[in-house]
């Protein structure tokens, strides 16, 4: 029998090889193959825009992933501008590096990829590298601050906070000036409860209809990337689970998985399966949270109570594993911290059947009701806009783009497990809601398949580079005690180099770029959090809506502010 799946895989490999050969012909010695999925290209500042346009138009790198700056003052050079792009046909990622300085302004990418706008604003905020046509405004750090906080030579000094009260819009070119003068500017401050964290929406309204709008972020900025440069690898672990408290194990998985891949550490099968179970439980929790918030915005409080009960039941089961709520350090370097407690699997299976029944009950009542359809069948985001902004995850799939990291570049056992990728059609709030509901059912089926075939064996690796000895050995054995001291004193040291690892988190592609100089502390860590990119497309969506629907739009995109502000 002809195997279609095998043929597709072969085609993918052929296409990727063809692309790599073409790229080699074009860029020759400037191209290096870092890992299987990543290539890095070095370009000079003079032809930086040309090369990126060439990559977009000739080589199909049409999805913008990330843009960041790395500080090279220790080397005596200036800054490195790094742009990460994705080719969606062959799943090939490329990092383009370009040396820049803070004296001259760099040509802006925001005409080619719209999603680069906030990234370039952030680069000025953090490093002082300015871009053409990008306003020099603080996006994350407070207005009136001295210096650029992610530079290596930054020293914090006291400053007086400037409160910028000017939230005006530039004249709208689409309407005559007399018409534009009639519009009002409205600010909407939202705090926890309404949306997931503090946010500010600024809108230009005429007769209660939003003509233009944008989001103001940075109220929850903690400087996670700077903190990561000043603490060792052990101390980073508890910080990870607190970036987005709804899905802590996703961040731990992206971080630990990347380091394990980089150090080439073998993870036992049981640990892999357990990590997948935690991740999928987190995905369900985050989607339930989103649905609950949408329900709350529409004023249907009985259903909010139902979703909260479901979320609490997940927390209760996780608490039986680790004695803590969701933010436990269950995933550690080299596996899972502890094996499954006796009787936990039964409770988890009970939870699955409870959730399936309850989610079906609730969504059956909501999904087809007139109120729900009337309020949610609006605010379209088409697939071209979504890809331009760099939106990923359920928001991208709701616009009809079939791209799920679990399918296209599967890690662990996602290859062997049967599940489907739900897709929307119009990219409306309703599609985003429906995609999330269907993803909950798919996650439930993934967990049940995993628990049915849970592999036996250890949950921690025996590799000496990341091994933590067991406690009872530490108490009795002197060799184990020495290793224990070595591990907790300096932590794991990464050899010199860089890597990028990403997974499919409930909101989209979550990635970590890490650059190490071979010392105890890391040189640069960059988080690619999905909310930072879906936050920008708010501008496109809100046009023509009414003011009362703003929280609804934000919650349907699921913007978690802890994740956006970092």
């Amino acid at each position: 029998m002809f195997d279609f799946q095998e043929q597709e895989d072969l085609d993918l490999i052929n296409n990727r090889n063809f692309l790599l050969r073409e790229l080699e012909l074009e860029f020759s010695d400037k191209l290096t193959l870092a890992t299987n999925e990543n290539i890095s290209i070095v370009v000079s500042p003079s032809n930086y825009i040309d090369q990126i346009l060439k990559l977009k138009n000739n080589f199909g790198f049409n999805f913008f992933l990330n843009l960041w700056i790395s500080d090279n003052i220790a080397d005596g050079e200036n800054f490195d501008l790094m742009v990460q792009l994705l080719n969606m046909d062959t799943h090939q990622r490329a990092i383009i590096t370009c040396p820049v300085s803070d004296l001259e302004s760099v040509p802006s990418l925001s005409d080619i990829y719209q999603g680069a706008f906030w990234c370039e604003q952030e680069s000025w905020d953090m490093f002082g590298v300015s871009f053409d046509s990008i306003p020099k405004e603080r996006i994350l750090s407070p207005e009136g601050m001295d210096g650029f906080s992610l530079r290596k030579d930054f020293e914090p000094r006291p400053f007086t906070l400037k409160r910028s009260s000017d939230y005006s819009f530039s004249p709208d070119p689409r309407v005559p000036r007399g018409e534009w003068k009639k519009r009002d500017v409205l600010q909407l401050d939202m705090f926890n409860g309404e949306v997931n964290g503090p946010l500010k929406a600024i809108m230009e309204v005429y007769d209660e209809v939003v003509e233009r709008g944008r989001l103001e972020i940075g109220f929850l900025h903690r400087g996670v990337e700077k903190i990561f440069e000043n603490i060792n690898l052990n101390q980073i672990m508890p910080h990870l689970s607190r970036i987005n408290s709804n899905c802590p194990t996703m961040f731990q998985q992206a971080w630990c998985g990347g380091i394990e891949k980089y150090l080439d550490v073998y993870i036992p099968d049981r640990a892999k399966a357990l990590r997948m179970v935690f991740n999928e439980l987190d995905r369900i929790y985050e989607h339930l949270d989103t649905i609950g918030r949408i329900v709350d915005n529409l004023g249907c409080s009985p259903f909010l109570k139902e979703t909260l009960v479901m979320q609490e039941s997940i927390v209760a089961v996780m608490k039986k594993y680790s004695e803590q709520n969701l933010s436990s350090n269950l995933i550690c370097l080299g596996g899972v911290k502890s094996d499954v407690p006796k009787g936990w699997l039964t409770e988890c299976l009970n939870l699955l059947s409870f959730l399936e029944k309850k989610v079906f009950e609730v969504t059956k009542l909501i999904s087809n009701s007139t109120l729900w359809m009337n309020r949610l069948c609006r605010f379209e985001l088409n697939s071209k806009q979504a890809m331009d902004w760099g939106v990923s995850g359920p928001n991208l799939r709701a616009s009809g783009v079939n791209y799920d990291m679990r399918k296209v570049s599967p890690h662990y056992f996602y290859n062997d497990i049967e599940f489907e990728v739900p897709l929307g059609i119009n990219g409306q709030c309703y599609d985003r809601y429906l995609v999330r509901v269907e993803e909950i059912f798919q996650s439930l089926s993934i967990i049940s398949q995993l628990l049915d075939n849970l592999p036996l064996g250890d949950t921690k690796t025996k590799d000496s580079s990341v091994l933590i000895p067991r406690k009872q050995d530490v108490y009795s054995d002197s060799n184990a005690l020495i290793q224990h001291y070595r591990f907790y004193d300096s932590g794991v040291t990464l050899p010199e180099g860089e890597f990028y690892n990403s997974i499919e988190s409930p909101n989209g592609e979550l990635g970590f770029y890490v650059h190490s100089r071979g010392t105890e502390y890391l040189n640069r860590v960059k988080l690619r959090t999905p909310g930072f990119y879906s936050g920008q497309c708010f501008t496109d969506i809100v046009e023509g809506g009414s003011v009362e629907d703003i929280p609804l739009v934000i919650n349907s995109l699921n913007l978690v502010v802890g994740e956006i502000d970092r």
Partner: protein
Amino acid sequence: MILGKNLYNKSSKILNLFRVLNLIAPKIWKKSFSRFKTKSNGFTGGAPALTLTESGDLRCTSCMLCQNICPSFCIKIETHEHAEEEAAPLNFDINILKCTFCGLCEDACPVDAIRMEGPMPFAGHSEQNWIWDKEYLSSYAGDLKSKVGEDRPLMP
């Protein structure tokens, strides 16, 4: 009897007592009869507390592992002048307002001197109350034997 409903049926007092009990505390019933009980795995949740040896001294040997690993820098240890002779710390302060209860100090301790099992009273009058010294941290040491699992035995 009104329309077939047995509103005024007589029933025994003992049966009614059980019915009321079932209403008030169904969890007690279910727990005592349920076969599946998850057994704790050695993970602990709570505020940090110091453990004592059988003779009543602190187990801590001032190795500084917990102070160095704390991600929020909330532990402060001062040693004796002659640390070789007297290993126990002179001062052991935890600023509980900074603590994130991540449990790394518990993992790092090689002599099982610190445990995340203390009570969490989250109310107080002044900021001074939130810097816990070694006397306060070790005052709950007698209760710290409840959650001992396979992965986390007590230090012999």
